[in-house]
């Protein structure tokens, strides 16, 4: 059971102040806390659990700048066996398509039964890369997996997986899919294991394979912003619209007002 899991390092901005750079092409990043994309953490755990049950090799792969190696180390600490870092200045400004093309080039020629992605990334959030990979590699796809079991599978020569996944109206479907396949992982599929600093230190010496555009056989025109099919024109803060009436004052005053409003407008 060989598995490749694609992971991305993203900024967690849920509590950060957002400052857009002049020109609207980027954000001030000083305050951001960085980490593995939430969905990818579940994907890594799923991969490692399958390996623990069935044996095989799990390879974590990311496309990103030098700092992004951090998420590969984290994946190794969780139990991945190999790490591949697609790293090249020419990748800067890649859109989901460019990311998928580079990942597809890195995946081709490897032996794998499952290619796992997160359902979406917390920053770009398009939920596209997994589906693009399935299309580019001509593999079947199952999106939004909440349960993943494999029967057999031996390095890309067949077998099936049973995948439960979310569809519409709160429904889930269980499908059987031929391997190799691409599966995108939804949160809650498992309980990702805790990664200690000690665990990360243990893998500090592990080798991370670094591949640039040339090693992937990609032309400059296909890479980064040059190859992007979707270009960013401008970042801006969301219009507040009507927006909430924000209560001001001391906590006492605010809560008192709120209680009155709940009675008057909420009909308590």
């Amino acid at each position, binding site marked *: 059971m060989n598995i490749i899991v694609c992971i991305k390092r993203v900024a967690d901005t849920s509590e950060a102040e957002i400052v857009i750079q002049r020109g609207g092409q980027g954000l001030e990043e000083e305050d951001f806390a960085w980490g593995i994309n939430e969905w990818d953490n579940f994907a890594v755990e799923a991969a490692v659990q399958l390996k623990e049950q069935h044996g095989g090799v799990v390879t974590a792969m990311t496309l990103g700048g030098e700092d992004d190696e951090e998420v590969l180390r984290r994946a190794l600490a969780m139990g991945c066996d190999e790490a591949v870092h697609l790293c090249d200045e020419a990748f800067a400004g890649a859109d989901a398509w460019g990311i*998928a093309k580079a990942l597809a080039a890195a995946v081709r020629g490897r032996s794998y039964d499952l290619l796992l992605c997160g359902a979406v990334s917390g920053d770009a959030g*398009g939920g596209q890369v997994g589906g693009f990979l399935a299309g580019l590699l001509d593999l079947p796809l199952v999106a939004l997996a909440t349960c993943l079991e494999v029967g057999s599978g031996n390095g890309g020569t067949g077998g099936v997986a049973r995948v439960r996944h979310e569809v519409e109206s709160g429904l889930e479907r269980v499908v059987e899919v031929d391997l190799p396949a691409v599966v995108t992982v939804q949160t809650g599929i498992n309980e990702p294991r805790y990664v200690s600093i000690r665990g990360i230190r243990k893998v500090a010496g592990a080798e991370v394979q670094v591949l640039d555009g040339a090693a992937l056989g990609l032309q400059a025109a296909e890479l980064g912003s040059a190859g992007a099919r979707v270009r960013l024109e401008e970042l801006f803060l969301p219009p507040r619209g009507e927006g909430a009436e924000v209560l001001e004052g001391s906590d006492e005053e605010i809560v008192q007002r709120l209680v009155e409003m709940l009675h008057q407008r909420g009909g308590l």
Partner: protein
Amino acid sequence: MRTIMAIVEVVDETALELAHAARSLGEVHLTAAVFGAEDAGCAELARYFDRVVNFPLSPGAVFDAEHAAAALTPWLAAEQPFLILLSHTNNGLDLAPLLAARLDLPMLADCLELGLRDEQLTAVRTLYAGKVHARVVADAKGGALATLRPGAFDGDEAIDRGGRIETAAVPPGPPARRRLLETVAAEAGSVDITQAEILVAVGRGIEEQENLEIVQSLAAALDAEVACTRPIVDKNWLPKSRQVGTSGQSVSPKVYLAIGVSGSFQHLGGVKGKPFLVAINQDAAAPIFAVADVGVVGDLFDLVPLLEEKIRARKG
């Protein structure tokens, strides 16, 4: 005239949103491709679309993205529409990127606005779970595909277009690589939050399972039920039956108190019927404040116990 194809999963509001977004791009000829629709469903679509193409499903089969991609790829490649539109739903996540890659088309995902500038398709989409918006553009000379966030576009008005209804001839393809085994309905929980008049919804801001107590206690003082966001269910802190959102319950209470909830569209997608919405969040830029009626910017650990105290005091 430009042709636009909308891929319709089910005949509902999202289909009308696709129609409306397409019509907003100017004079277009608009086709709906639908799977296994009944005659009534096709007739309904024909009021909004110029052409309805029904792809038959074998008896007992349901809409399936792998099957749809196999059937649609050659058809779309032959029709060569200017634009292909889908909804950014769970099924959309399963189908749209696969289709874009197979047809080798640029794709704009999860659009809130859509526009046309010469041969370029422009869109507004969100980054960082709604804290940042981005205006993006794709070259649509050779066609393009876009998915639209459900609810972000108005539904099309009922002008009867008298669309032509056809049944697609689907050539037998290779055997499906993905096969449906069963459909699983959501487990019914012991509480039914869909019936509650007041909901106290808790999100990841609560930090620890033990802390849920302050929210439960507030709910008790309000005679309310506790609801929650998905991460709370993912951690098994509360049962799935309390999750509100596109992959949880749809609720329509009179009052919705969101505590430590950022306000992702997947969560808000389950909040229907325009309740009186109060948000408590320490991040003034949290997207929830854009939709709440009343907002309190502050620490829930200070505010929630105080609120409970004042409510109990008023009740006497």
